[in-house]
């Protein structure tokens, strides 16, 4: 028999990364839990990224769950950030969500791998037609997409 640590890791992988449900579990109930978890994360990310969720409208949950189904959470700030960047790279970020992403990019540096850190220097950033300037931690939207 494998160790408890191993079996806990297999269960987390099934719930967060699209791995197979470990043997012996009720696959239907684990699937219910997986979907409930995605829904809970969606709510948390929507609170952290309100313009992103609102701009995607009825497509928000579909976009979110397609993206998040195989990505374990790195916290709702980074989850929303990663998704917004990916949409921006595919030119699918709605204009209504541009200023929010640009503002985050202007306030913090984020390499996509380690937690975001506050910028010390002024910055100008743009996304989906919006342009934002940050000076001394204060943000001004220069243009809204």
């Amino acid at each position, binding site marked *: 028999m494998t*160790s*408890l*640590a191993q*079996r*806990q*890791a297999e*269960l*987390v*992988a099934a*719930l*967060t*990364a699209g791995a197979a449900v470990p*043997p*012996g*579990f*009720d696959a239907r*109930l*684990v699937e*219910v*839990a997986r979907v*409930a*978890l995605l829904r*809970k*994360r969606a*709510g948390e990310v929507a*609170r952290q990224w309100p313009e992103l969720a609102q701009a995607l409208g009825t497509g928000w949950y579909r976009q979110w769950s397609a993206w998040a189904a195989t990505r*374990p*959470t*790195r916290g709702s700030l980074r989850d929303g950030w990663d998704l917004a960047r990916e949409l921006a790279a595919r030119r699918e970020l709605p204009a209504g969500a541009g200023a929010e992403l640009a503002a985050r990019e202007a306030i913090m540096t984020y390499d996509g791998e380690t937690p975001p850190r506050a910028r010390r220097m002024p910055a100008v950033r743009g996304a989906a037609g919006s342009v934002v300037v940050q000076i001394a931690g204060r943000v001004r939207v220069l243009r809204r997409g």
Partner: protein
Amino acid sequence: MTIGYGVGIGWRPEIGGFVAQLPGLRFAEVVAESVHAHGDLPVGLGELRDRGVAVVPHGVRLSLGGAEPVEPARVTHLAAVAERLGAPLVSEHIAFVRAGGVEAGHLLPVPRSREAVDAVVANVKRTQAELSVPIALEPIAALFDWPDDELDEGAFLTEILERTDALLLLDVANVYANALNRGTDPLALLDRVPLERIAYVHVAGGAERDGIYHDTHTDAVPQPVLDLITELCSRHRPPALMLERDGDYPAAAELRAELDAIAAASGYPVVT
């Protein structure tokens, strides 16, 4: 904790203004990870503490049920927050939230096996070694069970509490959800766990989706959960019972009505 605090509420920034205006409030809980160990306290929380409300840090990320040892920095943070708030106790869950370096994003059940009991007990003891106040452990609502359960819920909890000397944080909504989803009697568990060890009680709402009851904390508290409070208090009334709401916050009148319903069900005075 022998003082009767009565009806309390989970403090959240979104309802901080509402909580501040509850005249009779003597008990509140705050998510431990949302409080800085040394920086400013969230607005309103210090005021609550200063007016004599007991504020209990409630950890959600310790992962006491993980097979791996609890992370020392997380324990240190919990202990520091307890000291800052002058808390009479802290609480955490009998659950794991990460494994193999991956965050689950939610509280997951541990198997009710001897091996898992040993893991939980070891992590609780590691945590207690850093704390200057007691810890209360909360059994979670789980949508599924492990295939290798050896103990029933009552025996599992009792053994963990006895071996750690920890207090119990009983969530009546979790008891209700687990029983409803498994077709068992929620009252049966009340007869199987040491009720005199209850430090306080969580009360929360939920919703049914596809025939399964979800403990959402974003819906109204259903009547059967209130009935469970009355049943519990007729056996042994715990020192405090508190409403847990974590989103989709309703109007103040609705929150007040829920607090009053908890007071009515438990026999404690209203705090609104």
